[in-house]
């Protein structure tokens, strides 16, 4: 047993922390909110050059052969900087889906471009009625000659506005909530019959509602086995969940540090407010949750790529549940301890709050993962 970083991981960590500190000022991030894509293509290119987009991909496909722990290191720093570039969508969800589901030809053609920052995939994992149930798929893909015709709707598809490829779960057989009968398709972002309604999210990202009307794709658009994609989707989403857990850990650590600093410097009643015992103990609770949240994210990252699906599900759901609960407490208390100042849009505190709130919902909230954990 050894929980220390390798030399390579230390290098990645240094480089991403430096990037977050020096090259990703909060003001610039806010201005990105006014652009149509909501992020910087220049920054995306930098991510590619630094090897981050392919960090968890094998070298054969242009990656650097790392693991979910490397992803965790990046995501933690991205959390701290509130990075809006579509890393978890494209590199984690997209990358994992293509790597685990793709044929050799698909992998060879797509993954190197993803790692180079030239291809931006996204995964349409939710439908208007599905809530957090990945198997609740009403979108259909009807066989038509060698290809398929897709009809239906997908909701809250992150960064679809920028996506070259949308990975779409669609029903090739079975009924709405059947486990069997779901297949994955690669659909070009500008495919005929695919319409988007784009919007910003409350936490400063971009998402879209997608409508598929007679969208035709070729037989080579199928990703993975026909009718049997649900286990793959679940694995991919578990990788995404593990990644956003790490992002949340980065945010919580930043909130912890900012709040602790505030307690030490803000004076009221003639002394720093950190002299008040109630605030001291509250801060200890925050500290304890941050430490445990990081431990849980690490557990998930060390388990999510392993061979045992039950262990993977348990670790990911435990981490997501814990981090959902802890994130809520930490973000609420960070605002509370900052007082009215914590309510302002000017301070980063509120933006951390919003992102943590949305991470709880993402891929299923604390309750969803508690139940999933309990069923395993």
């Amino acid at each position, binding site marked *: 047993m050894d929980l220390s970083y390798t030399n390579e991981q230390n290098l990645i960590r240094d480089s991403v922390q430096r990037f977050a500190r020096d090259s990703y000022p909060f003001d610039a991030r806010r201005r990105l909110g006014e652009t149509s894509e909501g992020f910087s293509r220049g920054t995306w290119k930098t991510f590619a050059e630094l090897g981050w987009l392919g960090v968890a991909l094998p070298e054969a496909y242009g990656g650097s052969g790392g693991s979910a722990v490397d992803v965790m290191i990046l995501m933690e720093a991205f959390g701290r900087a509130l990075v809006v570039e579509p890393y978890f969508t494209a590199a984690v969800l997209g990358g994992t889906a293509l790597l685990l589901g793709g044929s050799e030809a698909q992998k060879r053609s797509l993954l190197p471009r993803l790692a180079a920052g030239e291809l931006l995939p996204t995964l349409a994992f939710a439908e208007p009625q599905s*809530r957090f*149930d990945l198997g609740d798929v009403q979108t259909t893909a009807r066989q038509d000659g060698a290809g398929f015709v897709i009809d239906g709707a997908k909701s809250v598809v992150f960064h679809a506005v920028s996506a070259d490829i949308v990975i779409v779960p669609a029903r090739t057989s079975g009924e709405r909530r059947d486990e069997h009968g779901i297949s994955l398709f690669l659909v070009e972002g500008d495919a005929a019959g695919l319409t988007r309604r784009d919007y910003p999210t409350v*936490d400063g990202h971009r998402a879209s509602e997608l409508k598929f009307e007679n969208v035709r794709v070729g037989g080579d658009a199928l990703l993975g086995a026909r009718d049997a994609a649900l286990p793959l989707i679940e694995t991919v989403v578990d990788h995404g969940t593990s990644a956003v857990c790490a992002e949340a850990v980065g945010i919580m650590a930043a909130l912890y540090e900012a709040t602790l600093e505030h307690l030490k410097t803000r004076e009221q009643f003639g002394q720093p407010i950190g002299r008040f015992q*109630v605030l001291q103990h509250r801060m200890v609770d925050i500290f304890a949750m941050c430490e445990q949240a990081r431990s849980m994210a690490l557990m998930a990252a060390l388990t999510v790529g392993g061979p045992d699906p039950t262990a993977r599900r348990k670790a990911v759901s435990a981490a997501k549940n814990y981090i959902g609960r802890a994130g809520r407490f930490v973000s609420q208390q960070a605002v*509370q301890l900052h007082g*009215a100042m914590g*309510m302002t849009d000017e301070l980063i505190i509120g933006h951390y709050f919003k992102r943590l709130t949305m991470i709880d919902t993402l891929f299923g*909230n604390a*309750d969803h993962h508690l139940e999933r954990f309990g069923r395993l």
Partner: protein
Amino acid sequence: MDLTFNRDEQAFRGEVRRFVAERLPADVKHKVENGLRLEKDDYLRWQKALYEKGWAAPGWPVEHGGPGWTPVQGYIFEQECALGDAPAVMPFGLNMVGPVIIEFGSEAQKARFLPRILSSEDWWCQGYSEPGAGSDLASLKMSAVRAGDHYAVNGAKTWTTLAQYADMIFCLVRTSASGKKQEGISFLLIDMKSPGVTVRPIVTFDGGQEINEVFFEDVEVPAENLVGEEGKGWTYAKFLLGHERVGIAQVARSKRQVERLKKIAAAEFKDGRPLADDPNFRAKISTVEIDLLALEHMELRILSDETAGQAPGPESSLLKIRGTEIQQEITELLVEAVGYYAAPYQPAFLRDGANDEPVGPGYAPALAPTYFNWRKASIYGGSNEIQKNIIAKAVLGL
């Protein structure tokens, strides 16, 4: 002992209920019901309807235009307004500066300000907090220096709610720097249109614009706008705090929100069944409902003591703490209920003017912003930590 209203009380309740149903503008009701953002005019139209009926200032003495209600009537009125989705009364004029002027103001101040508060002709705001003095009000710095028949005022107030709408501001100002901090504070009424007053909006992280910084640069304020005596401002501020009890728990408004939560939970689906039938989510709703019952009946007991002649005590701090905790809990559950559709940011749908259909269900757009915004409730009006300090000292004797 009786938990139910007697015949007179029931008749009164019916009267209020009818009035709200008839006179509350439909568009305002719609906004309140759906947690949308209210404009100045929305508040004013409702306030003016109440004024015409003689119900604008439930807590005021009859001689100044109060309706002369019993505490129970006041409670019924609050409750019916909330259940009927009337906007909350802006407290700054009617519940805050009004009672201070009634108690401590000069006859001239009464004659000049009270009728305009009653009729909502003047919109007031509150100048207490300063950038350096949040919870620790006594260390405020904004200065008012007497010069002949006026005060020269310099400094800044902050977190001033809806100052952008205000005609007048009541301020705690420092008129003396010597002696005990509290003793150098005075209570001054300032016209917002005075030269030297500027308002800087502060956007909150939910995207709203409710609070402001107000700057005072060599503002001349007539000496006749001083309330009571110089150096007694702290006393008046404490009086005001003790006065602000009615409706502080906001039970009826929270009940309306729970109803809304139940409706949304019935409309949302989880694993193919209504979310409202999910045992864990139902347990959460039931818990907050029960907490609300506990708060409601604590308030009724306090009300009953008040009817029996006991003055309201610092227990009102408990109503504030539990009231805001429950409000915040409900806003959280509303976000949970709606799943992914909490995510889209659609500011146009937070007002009423959008022509389009929103992304997701119609009830969704306001939910996350309301959750974010409502974090303020445990901070403003004395943070809940400060309220606990007050109870520990004043009630528990610790």
